[in-house]
């Protein structure tokens, strides 16, 4: 019922009150910015949690700098300082993963870019259901508060890992976490409703609210990717919600779905979780692919190489994403035949991924490349995604995975696709659309310095993790020095930790650039990147209701350096020039003498 008539109140010209404009706004652009600020906050929290973990791994058993501020439930006070407790380390592992995936990357890609780009790129005045859109954001806020509240309750925050495998997660007996685990479940359930509300909105908007001329294959690739992502969210999140609620019942009222002690099935949790979890992986990467396609095409001043192939590759990835979940469970006990089919379907995903990579390189090839910050981040995405994709092929092989499973090789892989992939795409997207969001340009020099340092430190952190994993270091390990065979790897762990601190520290540059540009940045024109898509035809930032009159679309979104125009770009809404006849008109048609030849 929410969302009402679907007609946004976009045409009243009176200035809305502060609360209606900034807090309970139904304007998709404001909701996008709300998601942006909330997610950046969680990105900082998630980064700090990671830094604390790295302290423990690099310098196990040594007092944590600033550790004295934590209560005794988290750290053990000693005369030299406070030492992290293993239980707190478990919470850090869990909360870092959960916060980064559900509260930073996913809302940045889907909440921020979905809300910002979809109506603007298809020429709509707002979402199909603006009030439902507002509800979507205001469900994400309490979800975030509940998630963080875990740190404040007795027993600490959830500690069973972001995957919350049963039976570890079914009872506080095993982790020492009671209420925290339940808050974790409640938070993610509420966040699921938020994501569903968003997905229904995105799909409806893209299907029904496109401007005249905006046919399916003229839709810009970010919007295409968000459309496919929204379908994945729509179908995957309900599975997670059902599983979360069952687990919540196991913990609170004592049902036995996943508890082997009363005859339940812990493996069922893994199946449900990964049946959601693998599409989730593509929820986290597909919008990045869309953003990167846009940025690379624009900054190379060339049409995207193989537009249709790009769309079809995303659709294939999304489809294959549903039949590969078992590759997370090779070690859980599985019929070998089933394992083999999961292996083959997983490796098949390399094909559409390779098509996309090839097309990005094809777009860059002999382009008039502008080395701006967005392009640098986008190219970083492509290169890091190749590394992450190739390590994925290793793990997809069942026999290889037997050895790599639950080691730091997995940690390296996930960070190559989630940080090297999604986060670089987010940086590309934020720097590219910052002028459209806030009407000001970000500082290029600071942006480039931030990019260079992030790229170097990022590889220094995560590349050695491949080696740590091959050396046998298990993930979610509190103290690697407890094992003799890992002690020789300790210098590498120290190197990774120091690099991680530098990586986190570098992000201060981005934060400074972001806020400085917000207030002091150079004023942006409507179309600073000479882009073709519709969001750049309106002022920066766009007014309420976006388009003064309904735009008409004449061509695809990537007509850069077109011979039909003098500029090197050809916006989608510019009417085609009337061509003077270049060749003499063909001779009048004369019917041929043979019968039937006139057809």
């Amino acid at each position: 019922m929410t969302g009402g008539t679907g007609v946004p109140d976009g045409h009243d010209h009176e200035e809305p009150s502060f609360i209606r404009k900034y807090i309970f706004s139904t304007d998709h652009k404001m909701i996008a910015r709300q998601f942006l600020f909330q997610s950046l906050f969680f990105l900082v929290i998630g980064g700090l949690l990671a830094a604390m973990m790295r302290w423990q791994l690099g310098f196990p058993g040594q007092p944590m700098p600033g550790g004295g501020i934590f209560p005794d439930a988290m750290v053990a006070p000693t005369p030299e300082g406070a030492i992290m407790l293993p239980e707190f380390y478990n919470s850090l592992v869990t909360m870092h993963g959960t916060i980064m995936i559900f509260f930073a990357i996913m809302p940045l890609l889907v909440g921020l870019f979905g809300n910002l780009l979809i109506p603007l790129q298809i020429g709509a005045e707002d979402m199909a259901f603006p009030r439902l859109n507002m509800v979507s954001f205001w469900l994400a806020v309490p979800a975030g508060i509940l998630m963080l509240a875990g740190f404040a309750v007795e027993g600490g925050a959830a500690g069973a890992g972001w995957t919350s495998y049963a039976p570890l997660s079914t009872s506080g007996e095993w982790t020492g976490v009671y209420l925290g685990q339940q808050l974790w479940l409640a938070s993610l359930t509420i966040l699921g409703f938020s994501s569903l509300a968003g997905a229904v909105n995105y799909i409806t908007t893209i299907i029904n609210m496109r401007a005249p001329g905006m046919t399916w294959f003229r839709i810009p690739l970010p919007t295409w990717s968000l459309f496919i992502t929204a379908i994945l969210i729509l179908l995957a999140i309900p599975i997670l919600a059902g599983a979360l609620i069952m687990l919540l019942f196991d913990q609170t009222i004592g049902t036995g779905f996943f508890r082997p002690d009363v005859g339940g099935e812990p493996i069922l949790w893994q199946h449900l979780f990964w049946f959601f979890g693998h599409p989730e992986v593509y929820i986290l990467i597909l919008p990045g692919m869309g953003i990167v396609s846009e940025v690379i095409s624009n900054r190379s001043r060339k049409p995207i190489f193989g537009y249709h192939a790009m769309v079809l590759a995303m659709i294939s990835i999304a489809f294959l994403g549903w039949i590969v979940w078992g590759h997370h469970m090779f070690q859980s006990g599985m019929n070998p035949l089933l394992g083999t089919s999961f292996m083959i379907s997983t490796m098949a995903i390399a094909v559409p991924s390779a098509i996309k990579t090839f097309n990005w390189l094809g777009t860059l090839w002999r382009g008039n490349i502008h080395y701006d910050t967005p392009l640098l981040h986008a190219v970083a995405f492509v290169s890091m995604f190749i590394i992450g994709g190739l390590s994925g092929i290793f793990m997809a092989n069942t026999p290889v995975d037997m050895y790599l499973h639950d080691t730091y090789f997995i940690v390296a892989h996930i960070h190559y696709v989630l940080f090297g992939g999604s986060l670089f795409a987010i940086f590309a997207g934020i720097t590219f659309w910052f002028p459209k969001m806030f009407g000001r340009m970000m500082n290029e020099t600071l942006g480039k310095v931030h990019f260079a340092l992030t790229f170097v430190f990022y590889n220094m952190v995560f590349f050695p993790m491949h080696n740590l994993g091959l050396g046998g270091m298990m993930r979610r390990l509190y103290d690697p020095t407890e094992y003799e065979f890992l002690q020789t790897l300790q210098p590498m762990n120290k190197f990774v930790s120091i690099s991680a601190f530098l990586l986190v520290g570098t992000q201060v540059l981005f934060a400074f650039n972001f806020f400085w540009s917000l207030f002091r940045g150079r004023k942006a024109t409507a179309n600073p990147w000479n882009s073709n898509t519709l969001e750049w035809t309106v002022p920066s930032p766009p007014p309420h209701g976006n388009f003064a009159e309904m735009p008409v679309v004449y061509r695809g979104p990537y007509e850069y350096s077109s011979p039909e125009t003098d500029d090197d770009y050809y916006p989608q809404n510019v009417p085609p020039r009337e061509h003077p006849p270049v060749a003499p008109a063909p001779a009048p048609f004369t019917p041929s003498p043979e019968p039937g030849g006139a057809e």
Partner: protein
Amino acid sequence: MMTTQAATIDRVREEGSGVYTLKLGMWIFLLSEVMFFTGLIGSYIILRFAHPTDFADPGQVLNVQLTAFNTFVLICSSVTMVKAFAAIEQGDQVGLKRWLLATIILGAFFVGVQVVEYIALTSEGFVPMAEAYAALGREHGTTVIGGPLYGATFYMMTGFHGTHVTIGVLCLMFTYWRARQGKYTATSHGGVEIMGLYWHFVDLVWILLFTIVYLI
């Protein structure tokens, strides 16, 4: 090359699905509901195949006759919902209100019967809590029939369906309230139509659940 196409473009939106936005949104939402119940039913199937002794034969524990009657009531409520929609399509305000009210009553009756059933079952020891499960069945024998997973999955599936019916009844009340205000006309009654879509979906799910939980 493109001029011919440009000339034909009219300033109306690109043809979407041919379905108006509110209805399309409801269809899409129902897709996610399908997946939600797929997750629950799939879990039930897996658990039952893995632990056949945890489950009982039809009618041993559950009251099939009562629920069959309740199923009939819910199907009737779908009919009345269709009648309500047909009425407003003809602009019949009185008919709309009458049939909506009938749907509300039938829906609420369904939930009421389910609550009575829950009370009876829990008092006989058929509970979702694993440690407290002690269902002796309708024959009131001395041995416990089925196991903890039976209770847990039963309440999980019927409970979530019941929640959906309850939400549906509340939305129907809202629709009824708007109908009393005369908000729906022969040409504009999207709210009634999407209400009907949701209601028929909930009905359809129940037919599946009744078959799987009570009859098989």
